[in-house]
């Protein structure tokens, strides 16, 4: 009986051992059994696979801690000893790094325990290297995602459209709106919109909902900063699914500067437009096909056409029938880049009269520098000017002959009164006063515009007249409070060094008063003489024609020519 029991007992033990071995071998984990001193006594097939050593190379030969990576060795040894001295305080599970036979690193998750009634440890090793790698990748990509998110120049706000909350926002967004990231998450749509029509909460919600339904939205929007001011932006809304959530991404760009620039551009444009339209000189622009693209008010007055009647039409319609060919030929040459000095081209009025006009033109090129975009020409109607000059000259002559007559008369009187000194003195005074008056008439200083006086100089300037002119001009500038004086020398036939010096002196004196001189009508012959005399006009404002001078004077005054209709 007893021996039978014993046998049965042994068989059971053997069977159990057999079962245990099988489990040990076929278990999915790598398992090692280590002795008291850490020597590995047994390993299973998985262990061999994981560490790359054969059973023979390990069993009885290697210590548990030898397989461990150097950094973790002390910790492993410590656990091993602790498990024997104070089993409860040794960790049951831990992570540690091991070295594969070929040197590779193995991240492992260890489950350890003592085999009861022995000093041997069972160590189950699960390879978590891949898991570790995945974690690391995730961490890196999360970090670089944030970095990119925060370093873009546009504000990005991630909306949860359904719950109407901000899920995330980048640094630029909190800068742009003036909130911290936490604060901005707590703002509502209403806090962020400018509010005034059409920048209302409802309209922005509508845009967001459309984007959420898959229709990307791009539009300009006026937002409100935390401090209350508003700012212009351009928003692009797009739906996105991030970790299963239905979200709307808003990419917001601050366009305040651009808006301001646009506004400034519009203003200058309007200013130039006005200046062009209401300039006193006729101005016209045509395209490379010689069709009129611009026609200002002065041109309307010159021709009797209204701008809308001629825009888009060929330049030809402006010339008298018998001169169409010649004038067009002359103009075609401008398209080849030639610049007119000043040419005379006759213009026909709708009432069939013909006017003589002096033209200046300039060809406008595309940025490539060769393609002609348009030609702009500015005219000066000299029909009236010639007549006026003639009249002025005549009246000047008339005055001079009157002076001669009077002087002769007075001289006769003089003779008669010789000896009577008192009388003679009175007579002299009369002569002197009248001559003075005549001198003043011959250099008329006229106020032609609020802030602009003009002197047309006609004939030769002797030193007496130059002095007179200087005094009168300065006097009028002060009387009328004019900041600009136009000095037109078109009527001066020749200039000598003395006259030139007077001109320069006049200009300096005017500047001391706080006004500016614009010298106009310097004909090439005079310009040449001045250059030969060594007169430096580089500091003097000069314009070829009187009307160009006037236009320049207006810009000096920063005058705005505005419409009155």
């Amino acid at each position, binding site marked *: 009986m007893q021996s039978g029991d014993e046998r049965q007992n042994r068989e059971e033990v053997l069977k159990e051992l057999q079962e245990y071995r099988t489990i040990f071998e076929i278990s999915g984990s790598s398992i090692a059994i280590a002795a008291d001193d850490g020597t590995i006594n047994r390993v299973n097939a998985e262990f061999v696979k994981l560490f790359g050593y054969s059973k023979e190379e390990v069993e009885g030969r290697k210590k548990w801690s030898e397989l461990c990576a150097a950094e973790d060795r002390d910790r492993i040894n410590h656990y091993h000893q602790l498990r024997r001295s104070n089993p409860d305080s040794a960790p049951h599970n831990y992570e540690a790094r091991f070295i594969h036979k070929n040197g590779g690193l193995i991240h492992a998750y260890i489950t350890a325990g003592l085999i009861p009634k022995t000093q041997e440890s069972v160590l189950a090793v699960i390879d978590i290297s891949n898991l570790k790698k995945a974690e690391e990748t995730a961490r890196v990509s999360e970090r670089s995602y944030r970095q990119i998110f925060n370093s873009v120049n546009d504000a990005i706000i991630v909306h949860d459209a359904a719950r109407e909350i901000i899920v995330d926002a980048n640094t630029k967004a909190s800068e742009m709106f003036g909130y911290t990231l936490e604060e901005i998450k707590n703002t509502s749509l209403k806090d962020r919109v400018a509010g005034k029509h059409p920048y209302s909460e409802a309209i922005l919600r509508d845009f967001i909902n459309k984007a959420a339904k898959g229709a990307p939205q791009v539009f300009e929007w006026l937002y409100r900063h935390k401090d209350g001011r508003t700012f212009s932006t351009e928003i692009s809304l797009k739906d996105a699914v991030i970790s299963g959530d239905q979200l709307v991404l808003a990419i917001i760009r601050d366009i305040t500067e651009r808006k301001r620039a646009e506004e400034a551009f519009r203003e200058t444009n309007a200013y130039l437009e006005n200046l062009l339209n209401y300039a006193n000189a006729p101005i016209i622009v045509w395209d490379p096909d010689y069709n009129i693209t611009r026609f200002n008010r002065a041109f309307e007055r010159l021709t009797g056409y209204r701008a809308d009647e001629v825009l888009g039409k060929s330049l030809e319609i402006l010339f008298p029938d018998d001169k169409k060919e010649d004038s067009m030929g002359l103009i075609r040459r401008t398209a080849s880049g030639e610049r007119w000095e000043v040419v005379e081209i006759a213009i026909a009025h709708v009432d069939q009269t013909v006017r003589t006009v002096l033209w200046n033109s300039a060809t406008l090129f595309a940025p490539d520098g060769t393609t002609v975009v348009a030609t702009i020409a500015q005219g000066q109607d000299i029909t009236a000017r010639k007549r006026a000059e003639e009249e002025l000259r005549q009246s000047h002559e008339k005055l001079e002959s009157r002076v001669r007559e009077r002087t002769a008369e007075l001289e006769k009187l003089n003779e008669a009164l010789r000896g009577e000194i008192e009388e003679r003195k009175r007579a002299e005074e009369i*002569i*002197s006063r009248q*001559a*003075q008056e005549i*001198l003043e008439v011959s250099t008329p200083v006229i106020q032609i515009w609020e802030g602009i006086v003009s002197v047309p100089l006609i004939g030769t300037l002797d030193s*007496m007249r130059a*002095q007179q002119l200087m*005094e009168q001009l300065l006097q009028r500038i002060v009387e009328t409070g004019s900041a600009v004086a136009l000095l037109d020398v078109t009527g001066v036939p020749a200039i000598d060094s003395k006259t030139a010096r007077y001109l320069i002196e006049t200009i300096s004196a005017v500047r001391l008063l706080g006004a500016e001189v614009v010298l106009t009508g310097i004909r090439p012959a005079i310009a040449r003489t001045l250059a030969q005399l060594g007169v430096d006009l580089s500091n003097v404002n000069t314009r070829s024609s009187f009307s160009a001078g006037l236009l320049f004077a207006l810009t000096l005054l920063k005058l705005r020519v505005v419409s009155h209709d």
Partner: protein
Amino acid sequence: MIDGIREEVAIIDESDIILVRKTVREAATKFNYSLTDVTRIVTAASELARNIFLYAGSGVMRWRLLEGNGAKGMELIFEDRGPGITDLEQAFQEGYSTSGGLGLGLPGTQRLMDEMEIDTRVGVGTTVVVRKWQRRY
């Protein structure tokens, strides 16, 4: 010595420069010079009077009327017993000054007036005579 002197002003201290200006202004205005000519004459007088005060210490200004050849004018005479001017040509150069001034007094006066004569002897003194003729039309 010189005939027809109407007034004379001693230049002893700085405030006499003002007195010279005042005297000359009154006279020139009375003789119907234009405002600009009055200003030219007074400014020239101011320059010459200051030169006396600065360089000779003291001196005198006299003025008289001129008449002849149908022309009328005014003459101002500035006389001092100062050190004299060693190099007249240099003194008339624009920008030349021994006192840190602009060096405009002498050349400027010449431009403002119609005529200018200067008689200077080192160690003896300087006499400057300037004239302005009435404008004839």
